[in-house]
């Protein structure tokens, strides 16, 4: 590619991090920030030890325990394996001089919440983490993607990763978001349109007028679920909203570096006429509040819709897959989505565990009670999100409504800790995956926005926020 041909945001970050283009067609890409957590790192550190390799640049890595930590009574982790795993991370980071946010540190939280919160995540960076939802950080215009444990070891040892360039895909959403429609609905709608493999091999850049006014929190929700569309990364061009969010955060550039950084960040947005391998344009008026009915994030329908009929499927494979999902979910085709009764509500995760999400939920449940048969749990995305919510009095509103108020972590998004669904329990969840068994064996997950989940908690069944008062 010549230097003056128009480039996408992805192209610019890529070429700026290219250490070596190798003869075998692979590229060695420099990694600016590596985030590490307890579940996907022990075997990587073990690998380094076996090969007597040091961590090449410890200051480029930050570690935190989030996936496998309890959300209450966590002074002493009861589960032995979980305790050992968390302790192993503490030991490994100490041995290699890597910064580690302990469980008792107020900055502890979900790795994809704390990166942005601390200002670690910055435009134009390359970032990796042994977690697929690393795509979240793309909201800042950082090229951020999930990697496996062998690659975690590779990055620790060399501060680089072996890659082939991804293809560019642009999804433009234009127009104001209709009443009741959030960025969660927008991304669920997109996944429904392109499918869970629709972004395979691509990095998705989200653009269009609908995104311009969105807060960083909302943008993160969109990029977060890029992986559910099969893309390794999502990207949004940095702008004034991005810069304002970062200014003054602990790890953000300061003094003379701040202006230098702004100048660089301002050069990143895609050039006019840059080439995209795939393009999709969406008119925001098409989008309604969305809910998943099945066991794949592409199984979405408008909240005002019906559980689908397998016989309407275009292919035999799709028909079988709908039948299997309906059987697992215990649903009959033709049922109104708003007639689906719920047992649990989970508010949290790297998708929707930020302060803005908690504010929305609180505003909906204020002076109301959740339905008597429903259990509601709120897990703030980080210790700082929790403190902020408590400062604003949100915890009181939420507890008065009947929600459990927990400590920060991934919690029931993946249910590695004790927060799980029982078989056949049905949950409205603000998380990102409704896979079979994801939130607990036999558990039934309906993904939705925090607003819909909050209204559904009060109603006791899935609620359409547009009819809710």
């Amino acid at each position, binding site marked *: 590619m010549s230097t003056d041909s128009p480039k996408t945001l992805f192209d610019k970050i890529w070429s700026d991090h290219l*250490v*070596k283009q190798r003869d*075998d*067609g*692979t590229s*060695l890409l*420099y990694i*600016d920030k590596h985030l590490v957590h307890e*579940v*996907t790192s*022990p*075997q990587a550190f*073990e690998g380094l030890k076996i090969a007597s*390799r040091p961590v*090449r*640049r410890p*200051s480029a890595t930050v570690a935190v325990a989030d*996936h*496998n930590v309890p959300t209450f009574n966590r002074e002493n982790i009861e589960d032995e*394996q*979980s305790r050992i*795993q968390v302790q192993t991370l503490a030991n490994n980071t100490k041995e290699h001089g890597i910064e580690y946010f302990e469980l008792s540190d107020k900055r502890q939280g979900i790795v994809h919440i704390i990166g942005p919160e601390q200002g670690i995540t*910055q435009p134009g960076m390359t970032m990796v983490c042994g*977690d*697929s939802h690393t795509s979240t950080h793309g909201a800042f215009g950082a090229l951020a993607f*999930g*990697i*496996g*444990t*062998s*690659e975690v070891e*590779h990055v620790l*040892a*060399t*501060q*680089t990763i*072996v890659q*082939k360039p991804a293809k560019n895909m642009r999804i433009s959403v234009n127009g104001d978001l209709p009443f009741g429609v959030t960025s969660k609905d927008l991304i669920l709608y997109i996944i429904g349109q392109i499918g*869970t*493999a629709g972004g*395979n091999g691509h990095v998705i850049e989200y653009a269009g007028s609908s995104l311009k006014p969105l807060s960083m929190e909302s943008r993160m929700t969109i990029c977060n679920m890029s992986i559910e569309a*099969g893309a*390794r990364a999502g990207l949004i061009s940095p702008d004034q909203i991005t810069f304002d969010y970062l200014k003054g955060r602990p790890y953000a*550039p300061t003094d003379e570096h701040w202006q*230098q*950084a702004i100048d*660089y960040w301002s050069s990143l947005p895609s050039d006019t006429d840059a080439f995209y391998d795939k393009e999709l344009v969406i008119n925001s008026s098409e989008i309604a509040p969305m809910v998943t009915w099945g066991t*794949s994030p592409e199984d979405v329908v408008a909240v005002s819709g019906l559980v689908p009929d397998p016989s309407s499927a275009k292919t035999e*494979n*799709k028909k079988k*897959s709908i039948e*299997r999902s309906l059987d697992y979910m215990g649903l009959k085709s033709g049922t109104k989505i708003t007639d689906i009764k719920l047992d649990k509500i989970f508010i949290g995760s790297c998708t929707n565990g930020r302060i803005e999400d908690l504010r929305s939920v609180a505003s909906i449940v204020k002076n109301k009670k959740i339905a008597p048969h429903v259990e509601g749990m709120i897990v703030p995305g980080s210790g700082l999100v929790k403190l902020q919510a408590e400062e604003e009095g949100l915890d009181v509103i939420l507890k008065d409504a009947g929600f459990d108020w927990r400590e920060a972590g991934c919690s029931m998004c*993946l249910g*590695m800790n004790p927060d799980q669904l029982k*078989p056949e329990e049905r949950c409205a969840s603000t998380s990102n*995956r409704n*896979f*079979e068994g*994801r939130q607990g*064996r036999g558990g039934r997950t309906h993904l939705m926005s925090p607003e819909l989940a909050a209204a559904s908690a009060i109603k006791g069944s899935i609620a359409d926020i547009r009819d809710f008062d």
Partner: protein
Amino acid sequence: MDKFITLKGIAAPLPIVNIDTDMIIPKQFLKTIKRTGLGISLFYEMRYDHQGQELKNFILNTKPFNQSKILVAGDNFGCGSSREHAPWSLKDFGISCIISTSFADIFYNNCFQNGILPIVVSPENSKKLMDFASDQKEFEIDLPSQNISVEGEKIGFDIEPYRKERLIEGLDDIGITMNYEQSITDYELLQKKNKPWIFKDIK
């Protein structure tokens, strides 16, 4: 890493689309700090009942498929979580080749780190191979010539040359990258000038 050159044996058919890594290895097995011992928990929820007893009708619990080294699966295999525990559990069970019409990116990469060959075939060939697998026909996978042979039929497949070479030679990526140490250092020194706020620690 184990080398992969050729592989011969029956293949287990698993005609489900979007098999995610949560299905391949559920969360409760991610608490380990080791890479080994996960084979027994592969496809746990499809393979065992609530009491932990083997479900007789699950393909990998039936003879001769419980000895399969090859898996033929539905579209978009390995989507979802980046957990490398998924390929570790497949490998530990004995599977070192997976055939599908498509794979999720991270899972696909993770396979090559563990001596597993993921093969992409067309929907037509996938259907054909799924039938051969159900009929317990012997598959022969030949990586150097990029062919799957079953019942006298040869189906070619594509693979990027660098991935092929690494599998055949059983090469360690880190070792190869470390040969570029000087380039990495040069890069850091250059970028310290351009983006000093990111490279404060680089002297």
